[in-house]
Structures are given as structure tokens and as C-alpha cells.
């Protein structure tokens, strides 16, 4: 060993490589640019650049009536767009003081938990993919397809769903949707179990992910982490429990937490959350109340299309809602939901006009991605890729 010491240059003469990782690098799953200063394979410094798909949603929202903002929220975290939609609807409901019937709440819970599963399926399989375990990505990923089929049955769209309305759901689940959901509830646990047994205790996977991109709970809080990434660092904060929305207080579920905040913990927290989601959906199916699937707020809830063509009141309300002529109270309101990545908040100021005066999205990705340089500095390049996929940074949410 010592014979080669003369080859190692002293600190002052060291030359570093600058590596441009991204903007469109196949390993980063999205448009992320990181300019890395490399010492061989070790990252000395990282400088992320964001904003490549910035679409100015906060500005556009100031020019759109409330119902037309839902499609914008679809495009935040597009892996779990129903949660964003519901979050927005609930924000408006809070502003106008609308009480949603229990059945609508439960239907929403089912949809939200399904999309949480879809989100976590993407993240966990991609962690597998990036460690070289392609099987999960190809095999377990079909469960996302099944979830999208349910969404399609409920709202007609798959990825950017625009699901639900202000005041409830746009329609009750159809027979086919219930049937598909039932099949999913039987199939999914088997797949999840298989995927878990394939990866979770795999020696190669564990060696690869344990201690990869760790963050302490304290730093995670300082950096504004929420969601699975914060819980992986050992802090049991979940909006569903802290500020229950959409009747989450009716369900019995636990919050899985990790201890090291590394890639393995983030993976495991997401796996366990999928089990919790399955249990929540099961409870919702068992306890599904009867009754209306939307609140009785005709001045905000888009009426049924058949009624629009045959009833005068429905036509009037339809026109008023589409043209944005509703009486919205003045005020400012913040509402947050537990999105796939953490606390997704909507800060809305209304001045009584047809569109928001100011709408600010608290996007969990945007806030926690700034810890990324700190998490990867001193590690290997291949760990940086893995850390990014385990943080589940979604470009749409990052750049809004």
C-alpha cells in the first residue's frame, strides 16, 4: 500500500471532475439537474437546479374559477393526483363551510388510499430497479395498472384524474368499479407480500441501501421533511392523524416509522404504509355508509349532466359554476392533506371573486429536495441516484 503513496496528490494540487448529472438523465426518473463536483467516485459538492418544468400554477390559478383549478393540481404530484384533487376540494369546502356526507368521505378515503398505494408502488419498485432488482419493477408495477383501471371506472381518466368535485364525488362508484376494487383487494396483498419477500431481506439489496443517503430526524425537521421521508427518520408525523381530514379519525391504522432515515428505511416505511392503506380500504369497505355521495351545495357542486339538459335550476347552477359566478366568502384558509410525499398544503386567499386572490401550494417535494446535496455529499455517485429515487422526488410537484 505505502509504495503507492506518492501517487496521491496533496489537497492543494487535487483536480476535481465536474459532472453534469441531468437534466435528462435516464437514472434520475424526471427532469433534475445536479452539477456534481467529483473526487473520483466520491461526491464533494452538489448543486441542484430546479424549474425545468415550471408551469406557473400559482399564477394560472389566479385566473381560473375554483372548479378549473382541480386539473392544475393533477399535475403536481402526478403519481397520486387524486390526493391532490381531494386536497383542493377540501380546501374550497373549508372556505365555503361545506359539510360533506360520510359516504363521500369514505369514497374519498378509498380513492386516496388507492393512489397512495400507486405512489408507493412506483417509488418502491424504482428503488428496486435502481439497485438492479428489475423483477419488482416489471412484475409488481402491474398493480398500479389495476389501480388506474379503478380510477378510470370512477372518473374516466387514469393519470391526471380530475376526480371528485367541490362538495363530494361526481358520481357514486359503479358496479364495475366495486367489482374491480374487490378483485384488487384480494390480489394486491399477495403481490405485495411476494414483492416484499423478494426484496426486503435480500442481502444484496440490504447492503446496497442501508446507510445510503441517511438523514437524522433533527435535520429532516429543519429541512421541512414530511411524509414517508420524515417518518423514515423516526418522527411520527402524519397529517391523517395530526389533523384528520375526510373522516380519517374513523379508521384504525398505525404509522410506520424508521430509525436511520436511510434509503432502506424509506423503502420499508413505504412498504408498511401500503399495508396500512390496504387495511384502511378494507375498513372503509366494511363500514361504507349509505346515503348521498355529495353535499347539498348546488351553488358549488357541478350538477349531473342529465339534469342540466332537463331541469332549469340545474342549468342555471351549471352556468353559474362554469362561468365562475358563485358567491365565495372572503377569507384565507390553509388546508393540508397527507399526499404520497408528505404534507401537501393549499393556502388560499379569497377576496370574494370568481378565482382565488392568491393560491400557494405547499409542495412537499420542493421543500425536502433542498436537503439532497447534504444527503449525498461524501457518498458515491451510485448512492446519489438511489437516494433520489428513495426520496421520491416528482418533477411536477418540485417545479409546480
Amino acid at each position, binding site marked *: 500500500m505505502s509504495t503507492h503513496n506518492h501517487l496521491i496528490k496533496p489537497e492543494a494540487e487535487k483536480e476535481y471532475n465536474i459532472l453534469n448529472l441531468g437534466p435528462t438523465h435516464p437514472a434520475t426518473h424526471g427532469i433534475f439537474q445536479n452539477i456534481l463536483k467529483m473526487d473520483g467516485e466520491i461526491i464533494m459538492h452538489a448543486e441542484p437546479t*430546479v*424549474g425545468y418544468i*415550471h408551469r*406557473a400554477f*400559482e*399564477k*394560472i390559478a*389566479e*385566473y381560473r374559477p375554483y372548479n378549473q383549478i382541480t386539473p392544475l393540481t393533477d399535475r403536481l404530484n402526478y403519481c397520486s393526483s387524486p390526493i391532490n384533487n381531494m386536497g383542493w376540494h377540501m380546501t374550497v369546502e*373549508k*372556505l365555503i363551510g361545506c359539510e360533506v356526507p360520510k359516504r363521500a368521505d369514505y369514497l374519498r378515503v378509498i380513492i386516496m388510499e388507492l393512489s397512495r398505494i400507486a405512489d408507493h408502488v412506483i417509488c418502491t419498485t424504482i428503488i428496486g430497479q435502481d439497485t438492479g432488482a428489475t423483477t419488482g419493477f416489471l412484475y409488481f408495477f402491474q398493480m398500479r395498472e389495476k389501480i388506474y383501471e379503478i380510477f378510470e371506472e370512477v372518473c374516466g381518466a387514469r393519470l391526471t384524474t380530475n376526480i371528485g368535485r367541490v362538495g363530494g364525488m361526481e358520481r357514486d362508484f359503479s358496479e364495475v368499479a366495486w367489482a374491480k376494487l374487490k378483485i384488487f383487494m384480494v390480489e394486491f396483498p399477495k403481490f405485495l407480500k411476494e414483492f416484499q419477500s423478494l426484496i426486503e431481506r435480500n442481502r444484496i439489496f440490504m447492503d446496497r441501501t442501508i446507510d445510503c443517503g441517511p438523514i437524522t430526524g433533527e435535520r429532516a*425537521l*429543519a*429541512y*421541512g421533511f414530511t411524509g414517508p421521508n420524515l417518518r423514515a427518520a423516526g*418522527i411520527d*408525523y402524519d397529517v391523517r392523524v*395530526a*389533523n384528520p381530514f375526510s373522516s380519517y379519525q374513523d379508521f384504525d391504522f398505525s404509522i410506520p416509522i424508521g430509525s436511520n432515515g436511510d434509503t432502506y428505511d424509506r423503502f420499508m416505511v413505504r412498504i408498511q404504509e401500503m399495508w396500512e392503506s390496504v387495511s384502511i380500504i378494507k375498513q372503509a369497505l366494511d363500514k361504507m355508509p349509505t346515503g348521498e355521495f355529495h353535499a347539498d351545495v348546488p351553488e358549488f357542486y357541478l350538477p349531473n349532466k342529465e339534469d342540466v339538459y332537463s331541469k332549469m335550476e340545474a342549468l342555471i347552477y351549471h352556468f353559474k359554476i362554469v362561468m365562475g359566478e358563485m358567491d365565495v366568502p372572503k*377569507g*384565507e*384558509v*390553509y388546508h*393540508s392533506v397527507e399526499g404520497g410525499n408528505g*404534507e401537501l*398544503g393549499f*393556502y388560499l*386567499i379569497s377576496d370574494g371573486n370568481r378565482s382565488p386572490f*392568491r393560491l*400557494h401550494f*405547499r409542495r412537499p417535494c*420542493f*421543500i425536502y*429536495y*433542498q*436537503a439532497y446535496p447534504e444527503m449525498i455529499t461524501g457518498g458515491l455517485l451510485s448512492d446519489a441516484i438511489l437516494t433520489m429515487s428513495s426520496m421520491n422526488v416528482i418533477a411536477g410537484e418540485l*417545479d*409546480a
Partner: protein
Amino acid sequence: MNTTELFDHLSEKLKSQFGDDFIGGEIQYDFPVLIVEKKRIIDVLQFLKTTPELNFNFLTTLCGIHMPENKGSELAVMYQLHNMVENWRIRVKIFMEDGDTKVPSVTSIWPAANWMERQEYDFFGFKFVGHPDLRRILNMDEMNYFPMRKEYPLEDGSRDDKNDKMFGR
């Protein structure tokens, strides 16, 4: 403690600590909103964070607001803090005149504020004093205006490729 009690409690605390620099507040839905002088914002947030009994140690979000109608205090920044143990959420607001956009940066208290402040600089042009790296973050560096301010229309006014003579836009 419910929202009203929390609001009264915090108002009393801030009043005794900061005197006239605590301007007042209101309750907006389930949030106590506290308004303070801009120059004391760091002290106020530090006080809210470090006082053991209050313990607002999590910065949920911060954002700028532009209100051209509100003469004399056209711009505002709101900070949303969270005490996760007691599950208290509050909003702290500062107001300022349009010409005077210097705001003390809170990055020294929460590193999370770094990009949030860069975003609000990008959108509104707030000059966060003490920020380690105040650059545009979402828009391109060459942009010469602050797009979220109300005087700028949704679409770039300099475009002439869209003719609205016939149908309006």
C-alpha cells in the same frame, strides 16, 4: 387549547415580549394569524421556536402576497409554523410598502426556508437579507420581472403572435 385560547395566549406572550412591535392579529378559520413588525420577524420566529412552552419548531411554509389595493402595505410575507407535539399551527405575517422589499431571511433558523425564500424572491422580488444564495429558482435567470405581482398579466404582454381582434382572448 382551542384556536381562540391559543390566539389569546400567543398574543399575550408576544405583547409582553415585543411590545408595540407586535401589531395584532385575527383568527382566520382554524388559524391564529399574528401580525408583527417586519424588522423584528427574526426575533419573533426565534422566540416562537425556542421558547420551550411554545416550541414552534417546524416551518410548514412561507409565501408572499401582493395586494396593490392595500396602500402603504402592498406586500406581505406569511410564515406558517407548526408545533408538532401539541399540534398547534399558526401563521405569522409581516407587511411592507411596495418600494421597501428588504426582508430579513429566516434561513438561519430553518434551512428549509432557503428554497422557499428563493421562490418568493423569484415570484415577487422580495430581497431576503442574509440569504446565502438569493437567485431565481423556478424561472429563468434572464427574466426581468417578478411574475406573481398583480400588475403582470397571465401571459407575456410582449407577444404579438396571438391576434384577438375577432374572438377575444
